[in-house]
């Protein structure tokens, strides 16, 4: 059944194909346009550099009036990512706007990687290390980067 949400998702997919932002990629899974797999490459000149971080996104029929559910399935070490992979990102919650699309969401997450918000941490350990011991933080992040290559 063609609904506004599905049409919009097909368009998001087309835009990811014809005009993808650098370092991110996403496509719906084979039998369901409402569930997507996505990849974010860690941005250059950050501890996350060259990591291949996998995510899943789930859209509701109310998309784009409701934000999708997004979570990492690669192991992450980041102040704003929970152990379950769920993200604490304002634009996926109270700052969502229906003008955002898949490309906008993924580029936002990509820039979140190097720009964490330590004022409301989802991972307290990562947040504390980020603030107090950047060397150790970088080391822990590099571990997840190397792990992301093996997945």
């Amino acid at each position, binding site marked *: *059944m063609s*609904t506004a*949400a599905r049409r919009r998702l097909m*368009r998001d*997919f*087309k835009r990811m*194909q*014809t*005009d*993808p*932002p*650098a*370092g991110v*990629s*996403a*496509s719906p*899974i084979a039998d369901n346009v*409402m569930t997507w*797999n*996505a*990849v974010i490459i860690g941005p*250059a*000149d*950050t*501890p996350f550099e060259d990591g*291949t971080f*996998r995510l*899943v996104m789930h859209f509701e*029929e*109310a998309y784009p*009036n*409701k934000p999708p*559910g997004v*979570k*990492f*399935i*690669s192991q992450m070490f980041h102040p*704003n990512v929970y152990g*379950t*992979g769920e993200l604490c*990102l*304002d*634009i996926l919650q109270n*700052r969502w*706007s*229906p*003008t955002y699309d898949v*490309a*906008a969401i993924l*580029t*936002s997450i990509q820039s*979140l990687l190097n*720009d964490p*918000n330590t*004022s*409301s941490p989802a991972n307290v350990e990562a947040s504390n290390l980020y603030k107090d011991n*950047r*060397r150790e933080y*970088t080391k822990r992040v590099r571990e997840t980067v190397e792990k992301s290559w093996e*997945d």
Partner: protein
Amino acid sequence: MDSSFELPDSTDWHATSLPLFEPLEAALRCEVCKEFYDNPVITSCSHTFCSICIRRCISTDGKCPTCRAACQSDKLLPNYAMREIVSKFQDARPKALELARKDKEVSDASSESKKRKLGDTDIEEEPARQTRSRQARTQSRRREGTNGMPIEVPDSEDDGDDSFEPEVEGHVKCPACKESMLDAQLWHHLDVCPGLENSAVGRSTRSSANNTYPKSLQSRPKEPSPAPTRLPGLNYAMMKQNALTKKLQDLGIPTWGKKDLLIRRHTEWMHLWNSNCDAVENRKSKRELLRELEVWEKTQGGSANIAEPKVMRKDFDGQAHASTHKSQFDGLIANAKRKREAAKAKKEEETNEDREKEEARLNEGIPQITEPEAIPQPVDVVHPYEGNEAALASVREKVEQANRVGTTLPSTTSPKPTLEETRIASQAYQGMPNPFGSPTRKVPMFALPADPIVDVEQSTTIQ
């Protein structure tokens, strides 16, 4: 997923000789659904959306999706100019896209074979392009003639073109009965032409008399049926379920379900009904609207299956999912890397060009006096936004914004202008000059400006 490539989109222009049509077309599309504006309406904050899209947004959170200003659905006004532009652009689009694609192919081929710079090619190709486009037009018209099947959507421009190549020199067509005759005979003929009464007399004065108009335009003066009255909003909180059921019954929509569902159903019906009132032509019948409500019922209403999706459950096995979809993820990784490499290569190329220019300028201007070391080399500086026009635009806008509002917000790093714009706009709107001012206040994470100190630390840590 091949079907997605047949979906007309503004990004289609990227692979043509007219990449600047991409932002043009994007400007004619609704920011919410990304389709061409359908019954465009303008908000009190002067943003334009499809009527149905903005109505749904307003009932979700009462804000403009672009600037987050408070909006009301009864303040929406139709944007007729936009409606006209969109419809005309859609008519012109297929042909323009086809030509621009062909043009790109040809210029690519010639630049490859002659190994010239693109700029030169463009200039020299100009006359050839015109000829080609005329040929293409003639060909397509010929095809139309033989098959009797229009290939393109009929378009006033195309019809106008016919007139520039009359079949017999000196002959013109009567605008009313379309009979071909000598120019001099036409004025006499117009007095007696039987088709004249019900056709465009006024128009023949506007353009040369040989211009014929498509049927759709000729019939346009006919007044559209008067718009049905818009439904007023209801104060659901004050209504008992019985009253609401009665209301839905009066409207002729399903009345089953609990109060919450009745409210949601009535809200959606208002979206469908009221946006249909904004339509000028091709207004949908109530039957069609009821069918759309039925789709809503099945996907989001009472008959919808709203089980929590597997992938979002707490016990979802990400590892297993990753291995099940391994090939897809591998493809995605390859894609993401390819694009990044391309961006990087482009950036390096630009940096090199800059350096060359810099050197050339140096050699010309100050020969042998200044040491090259004294000149700042652009290579060592990180330019994260280089080549990213969208990000640059957003940074510029932010600087402007900061100047205007008088705040000293340091810049942030999201490359998407829409996020930036809305954030800055809303910060200005809330009058919150510095989110760090109050530590107890819950600041939206993405509103955090990049801390310059953090950046310095970061770079020292890495190096």
